């Protein structure tokens, strides 16, 4: 009865830890839980009597699982979360139509500097202009070129765009502007926080 009781205490603790660490990268989370499990094993081996009290003592000394996970975050935003080459590359990529949007999005997701919330807002700010641009292309080319009933003489396949109404210059400009809101927002989020950044040495 003793063994199962103390085992349950330990498993409960480790489950709490695992849940508290849900937002960490998977490998990091697994390592943390394994480290703590190893610590508990070693600590219990050193206890003279391995009863419930010993287990509770070991767990008490370890502290709250939430505090342990909290310590896994970088200490200050500016120490570990300074903008690096990856972030700069991401911002530049976002301004390049099509391929750049994809590359930029991947780099942003890979970055550790932006929070999950930043990434989400950045994604919305990227997708929204793409959708708007897509819809406006359809709307512009729709009434002029892709009429429901094409003119009798028109042999063009249905749905093909007509170049005329879409002036290539503004269209090209629009493509360049699509990534701008997202890049601007993410760039703005990179600037050092005046409240936390070191002002002197």
């Amino acid at each position: 009865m003793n063994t199962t009781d103390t085992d349950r205490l330990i498993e409960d603790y480790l489950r709490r830890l695992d849940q508290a660490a849900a937002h960490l990268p998977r490998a990091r989370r697994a390592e943390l839980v394994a480290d703590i499990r190893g610590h508990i094993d070693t600590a219990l081996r050193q206890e003279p009597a391995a009863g419930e009290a010993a287990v509770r003592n070991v767990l008490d000394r370890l502290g709250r699982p939430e505090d342990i996970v909290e310590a896994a975050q970088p200490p200050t935003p500016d120490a570990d979360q300074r903008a690096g080459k990856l972030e700069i590359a991401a911002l530049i990529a976002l301004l390049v139509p099509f391929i750049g949007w994809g590359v930029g999005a991947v780099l942003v997701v890979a970055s550790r500097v932006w929070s999950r919330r930043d990434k989400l807002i950045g994604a919305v700010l990227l997708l929204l202009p793409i959708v708007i641009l897509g819809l406006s292309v359809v709307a512009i080319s729709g009434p002029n070129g892709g009429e429901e009933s094409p003119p009798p003489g028109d042999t063009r396949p249905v749905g093909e765009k007509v170049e005329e109404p879409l002036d290539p210059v503004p269209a090209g400009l629009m493509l360049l502007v699509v990534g701008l809101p997202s890049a601007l927002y993410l760039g703005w989020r990179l600037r050092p926080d005046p409240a936390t950044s070191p002002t002197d040495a």
Partner: protein
Amino acid sequence: MQPGGARVDLSQLRRGTVEYCVLALLREGERYGFELVRELSDSAGLVTSEGTIYPLLTRLRKDQLVTTTWRESESGPPRRYYRLTESGHAALTAFQQEWSRFRDSVDAILNGRQGDEHHGH
């Protein structure tokens, strides 16, 4: 992003310093995680919960200030040993110099000027 109060400030200070205590403990040679944790937690006021050392050890490894090796143990499962790297040594030396200046300045102000200001009010 302003810290909430004095307690938070102290925990920030602790967090920033404990990692150098880890590096200092590794100066004489490699140690395994449990050993490091118990040694730190036996020093009063340094570590409030032992578990928080493990994420710190992971960060030190990621920053390449320490390297790790798994070794079999005579009693129980294999242990992960931590060893100081070149840059770990360098970081520790740099910290030691900064720390003594910092400590002296804080002490000087805490023991002297602050008391005067209180009188003035």
